[in-house]
C-alpha cells in the first residue's frame, strides 16, 4: 500500500479538528469532576443543545456566524446554570453513583424531549461562509472547520488564563486541590461549583455551535461524542485538564488515520482499546492526577 502524502496531510488536519472537538467536551467534564467529583452524564446533551441553538439562531440573525455562535454559547451557559441550580446542587461530592444516575435521567429527558418536539429528522444549517474554504495545493478546508478549530484553541487559551490568573479560576483550582483548606480560607464551594458547571457548559455550547455547520444536527449527536469524552478523561486522568486535551488530540489523530486506512469499526473501537490498554499499564490514567493544575 503506497501512502499518498496529500491524503495523509488531509487526514492529519481532519484528526486535529476532531481532536479539538473532543477536547472541548473532555475539558468540561474534567473541570466539573475536578471541582465537584461528579461526572455529568448529560454533557453530550449540552453539546447537542448548543448545535440546535446554532441552527435556530443562524437563520434569525441572517446567517451571521459570530453573533449566532455567541447566542448559542450564552444559551447553553444559562442551561448549565439551571441544571446546576435545580439538580446538581443537591449532590454531595461523595455521591458519585447518584450524580451519574441523576444526570443520566436528565440526559434521557433532554434527548427524548428534543426528539418529541423536533422529530429525529437531521437538520442542516448554512452560514455566511457557505462551503467556501482555503485551498493549499490539493488540500481543501472549509472556513467553518478552520473557525471551529481556531475558536477551540482560543477557548483553551482563555480557559488557561482564567484558571491561572483570575480569582474565579484560582478558587476552582483551590477546591480541586484541597477541599478542606479551600473551605478554611473562605472559598464557597457552591459558588465555585456553579461557576465550573457554567464554564464547562459554555465550552460544550461552543463545541456544539461550531459543529452544527459541519455535520448534521440530530438529538442523538451528543451521545456518540460523550462516550469518547468519558474514555478521554479516563485516559488523561480524571480531573486532569491538560491530560484531557493531550488525550483528545491524540485520539482525534489516531481515529482519523485509522479511518483513512482500515474498516470503520476499528475507528470506533480504537478509543476503547486504548483506554483498556492504558488502564492495564497505569490505572490512574496516563498523566498522574494531582488536583486540577494548569501549568
Amino acid at each position, binding site marked *: 500500500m503506497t501512502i499518498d502524502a496529500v491524503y495523509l496531510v488531509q487526514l492529519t488536519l481532519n484528526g486535529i479538528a476532531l481532536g479539538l472537538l473532543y477536547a472541548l467536551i473532555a475539558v468540561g467534564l474534567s473541570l466539573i469532576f475536578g471541582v465537584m467529583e461528579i461526572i455529568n452524564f448529560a454533557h453530550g446533551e449540552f453539546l447537542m443543545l448548543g448545535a440546535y441553538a446554532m441552527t435556530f439562531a443562524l437563520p434569525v440573525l441572517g446567517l451571521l456566524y459570530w453573533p449566532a455562535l455567541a447566542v448559542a454559547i450564552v444559551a447553553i451557559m444559562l442551561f448549565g446554570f439551571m441544571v446546576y441550580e435545580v439538580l446538581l446542587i443537591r449532590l454531595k461530592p461523595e455521591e458519585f453513583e447518584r450524580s451519574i444516575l*441523576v444526570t443520566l*435521567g436528565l440526559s*434521557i429527558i433532554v434527548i427524548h424531549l428534543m426528539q418529541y418536539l423536533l422529530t429525529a429528522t437531521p437538520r442542516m444549517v448554512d452560514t455566511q461562509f457557505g462551503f467556501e474554504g482555503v485551498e493549499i495545493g490539493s488540500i481543501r478546508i472549509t472556513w467553518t472547520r478552520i473557525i471551529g478549530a481556531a475558536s477551540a484553541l482560543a477557548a483553551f487559551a482563555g480557559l488557561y488564563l482564567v484558571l491561572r490568573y483570575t480569582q474565579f479560576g484560582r478558587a476552582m483550582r483551590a477546591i480541586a486541590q484541597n477541599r478542606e483548606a479551600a473551605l478554611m480560607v473562605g472559598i464557597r464551594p457552591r459558588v465555585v461549583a456553579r461557576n465550573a458547571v457554567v464554564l464547562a457548559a459554555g465550552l460544550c455550547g461552543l463545541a456544539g455551535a461550531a459543529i452544527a455547520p459541519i455535520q448534521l444536527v440530530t438529538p442523538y449527536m451528543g451521545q456518540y461524542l460523550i462516550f*469518547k469524552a468519558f*474514555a478521554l478523561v479516563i485516559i488523561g486522568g*480524571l480531573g486532569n485538564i491538560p491530560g484531557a486535551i493531550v488525550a483528545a488530540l491524540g485520539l482525534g489523530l489516531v481515529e482519523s488515520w485509522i479511518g483513512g486506512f482500515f*474498516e470503520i469499526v476499528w475507528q470506533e473501537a480504537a478509543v476503547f482499546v486504548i483506554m*483498556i490498554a492504558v488502564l492495564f499499564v497505569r490505572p490512574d490514567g496516563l498523566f498522574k492526577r494531582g488536583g486540577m493544575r494548569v501549568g
Partner: protein
Amino acid sequence: MKLAIALAAALALGALPLLTSSNYIVGVGVSALIFTVAAAALNLVYGFTGLLSFAQLAFWGIGGYTSALTVVTFGGTFWWGLVWAALINAAVALVVGYPTLRTNRHAFVIVTLTFALLATLVARDWVSLTRGPLGIPNLPPPTAFGHRFGTTGQFYWIAWAFSVAMLAFLYALCSSRIGRTLVAIKQNEPLVRAQGISPMPYKLAAFAIGAAVTGAAGGVFSFHLGIVDPTFLDFYYMQTFLIIVIIGGTGSFWGVVVAGMALSALPEVLRFSADLRMIIYGVILVIAVFVMPSGIAGWLRERRVAEMREALARVSSTPGADMGGPLRGALK
C-alpha cells in the same frame, strides 16, 4: 415464608398462558420475566457488590447476538446459543473487568459505560458478522425433545422456566456466604481486606456471573422478538434495568424481583408513545434518586426500624420496664 410466597407466585405466573388467550398479554409477561432476570443480575453487581455497571447493556446485546448467530450462522440449537451467550459474556467480563476493577469506582462506571456504547457501535459497524443495521431477522422458534415452541404462549414456558431457574440461582448466590461477602465489600472494603479476604476475586466473579446471566437473558429475549439488530442495544434496556433496581431497592433481592414484574408490565399497560415513555422514565429516575434513594424495599425497612424505635421509646418511658435493653442494642 418468603420462599413459600415466591414459590406460589412462580407457579401462578407459570399458569398465565392457560388463563388468557391474548398473545399481547402473554408477550408482556415474557418481557417482564426476562427483564426481571436482567435486573436481578444488575442487582447482584450494583446492589450487592456496589459496582455501578453500565456494561450490562453490552452483555445483554452480546448475548442476543451470540445466541442468534449460533442458530442462524453456525447452525447450532437455541439451547447451545444460550450456553455460548453465557460463556462468551463471562469471558468478556473477565477481560474487561480485571483492568477496570483495579482502578477506582469512578473509573469503573465510566469504563463500563464506554464499553456499552462501544458494543452498540460494533453491532452497527461490524457488518460482516452482525449484518449491520439490517440485523438478523426471522430467528426460528426453539425446539426441545421434538416439540416446537412456535407460539408466544409456548415460548412463555421457556421464558418462565429460564427466569425461575436464574432467579433461584441468583437467590442462592446472594443469600450464601459469597453474597454476604459481596455486601461486606460494598459497605467497607478495607474491613474486608483486614479480615484476610481479597475483594478482587469476589468482585470479578460477581461481574462475570452478572454478565453471564444478563447474556443468557438477552439470548432468550432475542428469540422472543425474533430479530436482533442494533436497536437491541438501545439504551432503553439499560435504563429499564436501572430503574427496576433503584425503585425495587438496591441490594434487596425480592424488592427488585417484585419491581421487575410490576415496572415491566406498567409501561405496556399505559401505552405511551416511545418518546413520552422515555421522558417519564427519565423523570422517575431523577425523582427516585432524590426521594427514595434506597428504593421501596429500603423505604419499608426504614419504616419498620422507625416503628421499632417508637415502640422502644414507649417501653423505656414506662418506669421500671427494662425490656428495651437488648432491643436498643440491636437497633444501634
